[in-house]
């Protein structure tokens, strides 16, 4: 009996050892496979994460990586895409577990927070030795990633919020295309004309982006300077904003809200399906490629109605940063420089992640730009002229306030509470978040 039991113990240990050995040999096989590719130089693998709201985004990113790997055969990029709001969740978990990828694509709103928490590497040494080439670039384009006097990220390209419009539908409705300083009254008339002449919807409902632009055009902002309270005193701004929408909604000028809530990705939604003449939503100018592909025609670009002289602004589409934990910061710097400043990369991207701002790249792109890119470029320079500087990044409570806005907006537009009650509720609950929970 005794012996049999010892055999049992040995068998157990043996089983574990065999399994572990097998796992290890699988691991080895992996390493051998990658090592055999280039025998002379050791291959360095960099990880990167990026946000992708559509397949086109993934394809575009993959194409640039292929170009980079061609130019630098000893560097391999493993890219992971995450869609929707989950992107921020994933980044924060990676940050907490010290497993941020070498190259992090990071939004303006999170930039300062990550830099202050000491998670990112300052790029200044690489800018000084020109690994990252910022010669002749206006500092304003990278100002959003400047924290405590150090540069923590490189802007991929410039963007602006935009209201797209379907040129053919507007023509059919005998509506003149919107220009800068487009007024609410004109917009309302145009929505009605579209409805009456074509039987289609005018637009989707307004979003939080519209509200923020509307606040800006009134000389205030969503958050106050200290970011411990709301930045606007007068609730009439909120009430007017929602009363308008309720009026249009009752007239049937806007798509039904519950249909809009079904939208899952950028290819989806009433505008790319040709159901509305205007595409407000919260589109950014670089998303024009996706929409033109879906609609199979050129669309126009216009600033938001009621944006006035200060409402619109230029925003970096995303920044590329290097994680402090990266073991290959120099190679990562090569990559992020390639992404923004290499002419082949820029040609392949064709302003997909925003319009390039490096004068050398813009010059090189002149011949290859399509009409679409020229239109975007023209629109952005108009915004630069008419608009004002972007608001500071959101406070820590930002995501909670966004959720609160969405919830109360739906409550009003489903006509469960009045705009007045909604204004008071938003002010009360948002103030509570900002006072207690910001640091």
């Amino acid at each position, binding site marked *: 009996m005794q012996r049999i*039991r*010892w055999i049992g113990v040995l068998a157990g240990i043996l089983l*574990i050892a065999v399994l572990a050995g097998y796992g290890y040999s699988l691991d080895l096989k992996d390493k051998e496979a990658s090592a055999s590719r280039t025998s002379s130089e050791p291959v360095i693998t960099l990880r990167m994460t990026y946000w992708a709201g559509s397949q086109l985004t993934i394809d575009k990113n993959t194409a640039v990586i292929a170009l980079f790997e061609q130019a630098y055969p000893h560097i391999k990029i493993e890219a992971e895409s995450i869609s929707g709001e989950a992107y921020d969740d994933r980044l*924060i978990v990676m940050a907490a577990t010290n497993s941020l990828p070498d190259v992090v694509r990071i939004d303006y709103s999170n930039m300062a927070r990550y830099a202050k*928490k000491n998670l990112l590497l300052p790029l200044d040494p690489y800018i000084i030795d020109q690994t990252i080439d910022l010669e002749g670039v206006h500092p304003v384009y990278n100002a959003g990633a400047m924290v405590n006097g150090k540069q923590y990220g490189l802007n991929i390209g410039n963007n602006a919020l935009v209201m797209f419009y379907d040129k053919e539908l507007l023509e059919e409705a005998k509506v003149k295309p919107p220009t800068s300083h487009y007024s609410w009254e004109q917009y309302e008339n145009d929505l009605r004309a579209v409805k009456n002449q074509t039987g289609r919807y005018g637009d989707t409902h307004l979003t939080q982006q519209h509200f923020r632009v509307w606040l800006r055009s009134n000389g205030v902002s969503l958050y106050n300077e200290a970011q411990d309270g709301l930045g606007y005193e007068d609730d009439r701004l909120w009430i007017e904003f929602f009363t308008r929408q309720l009026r249009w909604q009752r007239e049937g000028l806007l798509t039904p809200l519950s249909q809009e809530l079904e939208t899952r990705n950028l290819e989806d939604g009433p505008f790319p399906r040709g159901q509305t003449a205007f595409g407000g939503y919260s589109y950014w100018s670089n998303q024009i490629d996706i929409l033109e592909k879906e609609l199979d025609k050129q669309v126009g670009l216009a600033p938001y109605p009621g944006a006035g002289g200060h409402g619109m602004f230029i925003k970096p589409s995303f920044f590329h940063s290097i994680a402090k934990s990266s073991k290959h910061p120099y190679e990562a710097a090569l990559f992020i420089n390639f992404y923004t400043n290499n002419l082949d990369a820029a040609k392949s991207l064709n302003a997909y992640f925003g319009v390039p701002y490096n004068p050398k790249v813009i010059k090189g792109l002149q011949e290859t730009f399509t009409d679409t890119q020229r239109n975007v470029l023209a629109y952005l320079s108009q915004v630069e002229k008419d608009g004002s500087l972007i608001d500071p990044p959101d406070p*820590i409570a930002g995501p909670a306030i966004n*959720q609160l806005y969405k*919830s109360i907006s739906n409550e009003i537009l489903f006509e*469960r509470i009045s705009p007045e009650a909604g204004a008071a509720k938003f002010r009360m609950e948002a103030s509570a978040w900002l006072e207690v929970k910001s640091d």
Partner: protein
Amino acid sequence: MRWLRNPDLYAGYAFILPWLIGLFVFSLFPIFFSLYLSFTDYDILSSPEWIGLGNYKEMFTDDPRFVKSAKVTLLYVFVSVPLRLSFALGIAVLLNMKLKGSSILRSFYYLPTLMGGSVAVIVMWGQLFGMNGAFNSLLKSLFGIQVSISWITDPSTALGSLIALSVWQFGSAMLIFLAGLKQIPASLIEAAKVDGAPAWQRFIRITLPLLSPVIFFNLVMGIIGGFKVFSEGMILTGGGPHDQTLFYVIYLYETSFRFLHMGYGSAMAWVLLLAVCLLTALVFRSSSLWVHYESKGNG
């Protein structure tokens, strides 16, 4: 210290070693770490800061969304669990009758459960009951009713459509009921038949009491699963519109990972655990009143 020399002990532990490591590293440690976190203010990126019972206090006195999420979840559990169980029982009774092709039907009814939890099915559900979904066009072609709401995103129907999704996944409860029904001695039913008891009386007086241990089991599992509901709401509604489907666990996730209040989220997780324990204990307590164990009755 003789037990130390007992090879039985080593053999046993050697065999369960991988599992033990898993238990300690991946279950027990995180569980107790979250208990610690629930007494702290922790934003994931900075180190946790001890605040005692602050999170728990805030939850019950100063957080309307917490109350809302608790209400939504309770409503979901109290409506969906009884509905799903009665549906499962009804189908199980039908399948238990010796009809032609009942084994094919059995697999057929189990299909939704096989696919049940998967994201693809949830997305499909969203399309069936969307604004331009199959359900609305069915209503139009069959009854000529033009419905222009999205059952998933309209505030009055959103929770209902999620409950319907849960009822539709009745398969596993049905299989367990079916197994229970097969256990009921045919002699008892036959005896009642001879005595002239009509079908409904045989069902209520004989089948149900003999099935009560199985109902009890399904009820407990259903309640526990109901409180943990997450992916359906997360994928279909995201807790919206205006928090009408804000399930407890969705709010927990939002608080922890989106608003970065990991301490508060941990406290919510512990409150959920206690609530589920309490309710399960209540059901167990009540079981002496309605659950009938055959062996005891005979013994």
